[in-house]
């Protein structure tokens, strides 16, 4: 492990990678501070820019965007009550009241320092757990991978925002359309209505359409909204001492964030919500939560930043994305010819270890950029929404074209943008669809390989201990909302 770290450090401390890291942080802050743009949208838009880069700077840049956008989301949440990221909504519960009573500098300091502490603790957990998970997963066969994909998809279905049924409909839509193209086992054509679909639906253009272009249509609807004016634009000071009274909250929230992040579908929003709830329940001053209690900011920010590393753990070790942004990262890895999963640690150890090193190198930069650039980042919320929509729509089209130098990819992006928007309005969110597009091939190929190995006996496949446990868990996850509802009745 140590030699891999040393090797990775040598690769990261090069001019090209450090520039990529800083660019990723700046883009991440921009995306994170801008309400309406999320880390997954930012990453989807930036993937085409990584085509010409080597694997390490490309991946380090994408991970930096992911990390930095979660850092930045808290800034507009505190100053203008406009969460830059969904998870930062919880930060606004106490951050905005603090800002209103003139403590915005302190709130920003706590937010960014807690984010940094959460990222540091979860980064350490990621280094320890990802390698262990990957080693364990090396023993997995097709049956176990099938069961893992089923568990991942069932968790995504149940834990996604909104109706579970609609999330599962989204999953099924993704699993259905992912079968277009060449059959992964026999190589026969399926649903190829046009020769351009012979390789299946192009993943990256579909991703850009579902995440980014569908958001452009939401922006078109809300073009007339005026952003709340900023009353205070303070500069925050870097004070670790301010965090000391909340060290237990930081540690507890980081652990909650990390472990919630590991669960596919749970993500930063749920991590910060749980962490906030726990902090509130354990606090002797629980009545002051929601009215500007600094501990609320610390709990939310430490957890939502810790969930980023949590989401990277199953991605790197098992090839299962822990969040929508992690699913986008799979797209970035695939474009570089890399397959996330246990073999990544064996065949390309420089990739996961460069990500680890990049996380730790980027951390102080992110804290500094957040603390000293707060005035700038909050101004981003003042960029007129119509201008953002126009630029994002144009980048969507450019990025889609760059995926294969073909206008067909643009058509896919345009089509999925419209589909994504219409489904959103039906409460079917893009994340389950994208995760099904990512895991669909693995699910089918693993199941069919497992069946071939087991001489077509479903019982033999399901009777393998790990498979049985994982499928049992998936069934439990799927029926648990119904059981909960019956108990409530």
């Amino acid at each position, binding site marked *: 492990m140590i030699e891999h770290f040393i090797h990775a450090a040598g690769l990261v401390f090069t001019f090209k990678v450090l520039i990529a890291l800083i660019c990723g942080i700046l883009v991440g802050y921009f995306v994170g501070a801008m309400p309406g743009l999320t880390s997954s949208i930012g990453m989807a838009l930036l993937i*085409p820019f990584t085509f*010409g880069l080597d694997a390490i700077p490309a991946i380090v840049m994408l991970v930096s965007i992911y990390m930095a956008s979660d850092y930045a989301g808290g800034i507009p949440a505190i100053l*203008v*009550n406009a*969460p830059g*990221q969904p*998870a*930062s909504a919880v930060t606004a519960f106490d951050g905005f009241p603090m800002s209103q009573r003139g403590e915005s500098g302190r709130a920003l300091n706590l937010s960014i320092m807690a984010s940094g502490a959460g990222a540091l603790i979860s980064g350490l957990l990621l280094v320890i757990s990802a390698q262990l998970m990957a080693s364990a997963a090396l023993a997995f066969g097709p049956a176990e991978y099938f069961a893992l994909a089923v568990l991942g998809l069932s968790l995504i279905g149940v*834990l*996604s*925002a*909104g109706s579970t*049924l*609609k999330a599962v409909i989204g999953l*099924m839509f993704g699993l*259905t359309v992912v079968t277009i193209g060449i059959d992964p086992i026999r190589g*026969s054509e*399926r*649903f190829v209505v046009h020769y351009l679909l012979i390789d299946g639906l192009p993943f990256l253009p579909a991703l850009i359409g579902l995440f980014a272009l569908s*958001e*452009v*249509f*939401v922006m*078109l*609807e*809300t*073009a*007339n*909204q*005026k952003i*709340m004016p900023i009353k205070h634009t303070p500069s925050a000071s870097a004070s670790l001492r301010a965090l000391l009274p909340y060290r237990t909250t930081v540690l507890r929230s980081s652990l909650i964030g990390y472990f919630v992040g590991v669960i596919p579908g749970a993500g930063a*929003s749920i991590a910060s*919500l749980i962490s906030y709830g726990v902090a509130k329940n354990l606090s002797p001053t629980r009545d002051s939560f929601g009215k500007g209690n600094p501990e609320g900011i610390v709990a939310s920010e430490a957890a939502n930043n810790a969930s980023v590393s949590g989401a990277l753990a199953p991605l790197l070790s098992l090839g299962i994305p822990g969040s929508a942004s992690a699913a986008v990262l799979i797209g970035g890895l695939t474009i570089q010819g890399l397959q996330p999963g246990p073999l990544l640690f064996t065949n390309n150890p420089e990739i996961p270890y460069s990500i680890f090193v990049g996380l730790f190198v980027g951390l102080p930069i992110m804290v500094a950029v957040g603390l000293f650039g707060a005035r700038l980042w909050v101004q981003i919320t*003042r960029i*007129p*929404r*119509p*201008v953002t929509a*126009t630029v994002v*729509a*144009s*980048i969507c*089209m*450019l990025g889609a074209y*760059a995926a294969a130098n073909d*206008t*067909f990819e*643009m*058509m896919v992006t*345009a*089509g999925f943008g*419209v589909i994504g*928007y219409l489904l959103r309005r*039906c409460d079917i969110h893009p994340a389950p669809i994208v995760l099904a597009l990512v895991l*669909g091939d693995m699910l089918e190929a693993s199941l*069919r390989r497992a*069946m*071939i190995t087991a001489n*077509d006996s*479903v019982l033999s496949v399901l009777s393998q201990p790990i498979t049985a446990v994982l499928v049992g868990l998936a069934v439990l996850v799927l029926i648990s909302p119904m059981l909960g509802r019956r108990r409530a009745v």
Partner: protein
Amino acid sequence: MAAPHLKNAGEEPASLPTESTAEGTVPEMHESEIEVPAALYDVVICGVLAALGLWFVFYALRMPTSDAAFDPGTFPMIAGGLLVVLSGLQIALALAGKGARGVVGFQRPLWLAIGMVLVMVFPFAVGAFGYYLVTVIWVPVFGWVAGVRRPLSLLATTAIVLLLAKGVFEMLLGTPLP
């Protein structure tokens, strides 16, 4: 466990009523919002999804089969079949009025529809006339549809997009644009 009250966070910023002019935008485009009953919208969307699922099942059934338990058509048949069943279930729930969401509102519907058409037309136009020519026209038009009204803002937005295309994609990344 899901956090329904958070799901629009990050999408809808804190906003004020559209009274005064935001930079580069004109809020005078007061346009009535179209409201569709959520149940009807769910029925239509899930109906389309169910039809898509049926199409996949139909063609999966026509694929060659063998003695193996899983043929190339089996997985899409299961996924498509589940899509049909679940969409049907959602339609039934919507018709029964369970889990009602009130109405689905589409703000600025005309501009939204024009924006969608512009996005759909863009790839064909680029294929026919080339990227730069189409972009010089498309970006200001889309910007206008999005709500940018100041000529300078439209010009600046177009310049940013063209610079990105030429500087980053063509020169830096070596992606030749049509």
